[in-house]
């Protein structure tokens, strides 16, 4: 290598892209399990980009929630760490809650009792974003009302 060596590709990505990259690297250090949840949300809906934004927005189409539930279920089964698998499990349930709350649709085979128990396990998990827990709480109330 000589002093006149220079990288072949002098392309410098846009500043926003570099900031985004550093931001998700930082998130993976600070909140690794939550990061996995957000990365999957980004895969499903890049505009919203986080699990909280995806799951607490009534305007998200049902098909997107169904897609997210499948991917979160995959994280639940095959996530790298126990924390990641737990987040996958919680967020898969949260997708079912959002589908029920915002679209009146059941996207799991759970009966009411199993669904209520699942919703309650999510609302009890203080590591999840408050907006997600509040949404699931609303879904839980709606399910209770519907069973009366």
């Amino acid at each position: 290598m000589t002093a006149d060596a220079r990288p072949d590709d002098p392309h410098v990505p846009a500043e926003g892209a570099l900031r985004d990259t550093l931001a998700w690297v930082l998130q993976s250090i600070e909140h690794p399990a939550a990061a996995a949840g957000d990365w999957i949300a980004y895969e499903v809906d890049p505009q919203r980009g986080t699990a909280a934004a995806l799951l607490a927005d009534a305007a998200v189409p049902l098909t997107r929630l169904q897609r997210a539930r499948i991917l979160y279920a995959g994280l639940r089964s095959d996530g790298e760490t126990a924390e990641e698998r737990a987040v996958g499990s919680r967020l898969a349930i949260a997708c079912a809650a959002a589908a029920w709350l915002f679209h009146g649709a059941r996207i799991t085979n759970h009966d009411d009792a199993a669904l209520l128990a699942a919703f309650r396990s999510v609302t009890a998990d203080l590591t999840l974003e408050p907006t997600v827990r509040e949404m699931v709480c609303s879904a839980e109330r709606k399910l209770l009302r519907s069973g009366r």
Partner: protein
Amino acid sequence: MAASHDPPRRPDAAPDAAPAQHVPASDREAAVACWGAIYAYIRQAGRSDEQARDLTQGFIADVLLGRGLLAKLDERRGQFRTLLLSAVRNYLADAYRHDHAARRHPGHGRIVAAGNDSHDDGLVDRTTPAPEAAFNRAWVAALVREAAADLQAECLASGREAAWDIFDRRVLRPMLEGAEPPTYEALVARWGLHAPTQVSNTIVAMRRAFATHLVRRMGACSGDGARGQIRELLTLLEGRSP
């Protein structure tokens, strides 16, 4: 193309397990890694493309290689980035003084006016006028490229072509180059996978592995060190003082 049914292996180390401080292993490695940042600073300082290239080569030959800049690195004085930025700034100031002295005393007793040294041919990015901002942006871009190259090499060496390809096509290129990402269905078909969850789990694992490599490249001694450095770079990219 060989199909792979195996999801990528998991990264061996978390970002917090980064090794002791890593700066470029040699001045020559630093020369290659830092070319873009040095050039960006000089170019944004108002030099023409040709001048900036010449000055970048001059800095690398005279300071980085000639004076062994790495040997002067002292952790108490800050990171390599700070040291390099300071050295480039000084080098450019010296070059400016040298040029002006030459113009004031061109020989044969003639006196000429010192003109504007800003050879702006319209290519200088005036939207982010500070040379430091251009330097920092190019520095981060180089870090990202190096981390990606490390991850690619690791994947290819361990038979995880599918994992690298999925991450590169679905995450890196769209994010850094604005490329259109392939659909999950296309990636599943391309690599003979069974389910879209293999793609999403691969992406999660690869993002984490990329983060590990980027932290290593930053030379962070610990998770706290990595956090601090990334926050500082984020602040610098936003144009604020850390």
